[in-house]
């Protein structure tokens, strides 16, 4: 537990923190609003006394009340894991800025979070489903997901061979084989 790091964070991100900085074991946790993600992450990544170059993990969380996006960062300036929680996303339309401008490798993790929770990452160039079939309509890791009801909304119950995958919309669309750019 790095007490100094806690005070450093409190000083640096005084305006952005939406809750107290919590520490337990070897983890330091800060909570920010979804709108501040870009500023906070850029500061964490770029500033030499923070220098969080490693994005260890990016996870979506559904608490049943709100949605969260949780980032875990590593830096050589502190022995702790830094957990940044973008808190308070609405469950109806969760939106958060993408961090692919800092870590391009976050692209697939964001796609996964989108696929599982329906969290929209603004700025991710390729935000589409990654695990579930394209015609799948619900978000399996949400707390209100219940398999017999929710999967039934997707044509074929979400289980289809790749050739038969239908258009995501309910009305059938014509085939779109684009040969050359017009």
């Amino acid at each position, binding site marked *: 537990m790095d007490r100094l790091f806690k005070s450093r964070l409190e000083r640096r991100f005084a305006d952005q923190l939406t809750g107290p900085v919590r520490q337990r074991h070897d983890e330091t946790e800060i909570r920010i609003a979804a709108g501040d993600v870009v500023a906070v992450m850029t500061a964490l990544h770029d500033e030499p006394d923070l220098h969080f170059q490693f994005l260890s993990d990016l996870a979506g969380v559904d608490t049943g009340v709100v949605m969260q996006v949780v980032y875990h960062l590593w830096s050589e300036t502190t022995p702790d894991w830094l957990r940044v929680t973008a808190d308070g996303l609405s469950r109806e339309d969760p939106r958060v800025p993408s961090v692919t401008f800092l870590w391009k490798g976050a692209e697939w993790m964001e796609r996964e979070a989108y696929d599982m929770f329906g969290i929209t990452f603004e700025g991710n160039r390729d935000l589409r489903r990654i695990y579930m079939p394209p015609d799948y309509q619900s978000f399996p890791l949400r*707390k*209100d*997901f*219940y*398999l017999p009801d929710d999967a039934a909304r997707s044509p074929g119950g979400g289980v289809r061979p790749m050739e038969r995958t239908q258009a995501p919309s309910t009305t059938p669309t014509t085939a779109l084989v684009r040969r050359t750019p017009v």
Partner: protein
Amino acid sequence: MSLVPGLGLAKGMALTLRRFFEPKVTVMYPEDRRDVPHKFRGRLQLLYDEWGTLKCETCFQCAQACPIECIDMGGIDTRGRYHVHWGAPETYGERREESALRRSGRPVPDPAYRPFAAVDLGALDGILDEYDHDPAHMLAILEATQAAYGYLPVAALKRISQLTGAWYAMIYGTATYYSHLRFEPAEASAQAAAVAAHRPPEGAYLAALDAALGKRRNPGKPARA
């Protein structure tokens, strides 16, 4: 890479040629079988004791402990009255569906216990609170429940299982182990006792046996009535 082109290739070729003559590692499976380690966990079999009876006592502990829930077992309890089953339906019924429903904020139906009489479980919650929902005090909880209802209703056992997190089969095992706990009202038990009274007493058989054999049996344990 070496300076002489092709030397690496030649070395590799020499190595394969050397291995060509080396002893082989293949195990000729159906003919010779490898020894399985003592600790190997993959055996799926029931063991028999030296008299040829199954060692399994249908205690359901394996089915409860199985982390991936691949064991499905059924059996009759020691008094031959209730059929107990533990397997995928119970597991999913108790764990998966329930927790999924609970978390998604939906009501949790319990069709498995519908045939049993509904009882008012208000008293039970008080008992559980008193024992801090701790499964370690299971016997005390069960005794208190029996004191409150006169017997152990299935719905109450189910509720205890839900709230304490102890497996239903474990509670059931505890309840059947102690002879003072019963699963039906005292009247039903009395009826069963009356039926038992019609049978010739066990002592009569033993006395006849003693007479026939002309010697005394071990007098240590009195015969149970």
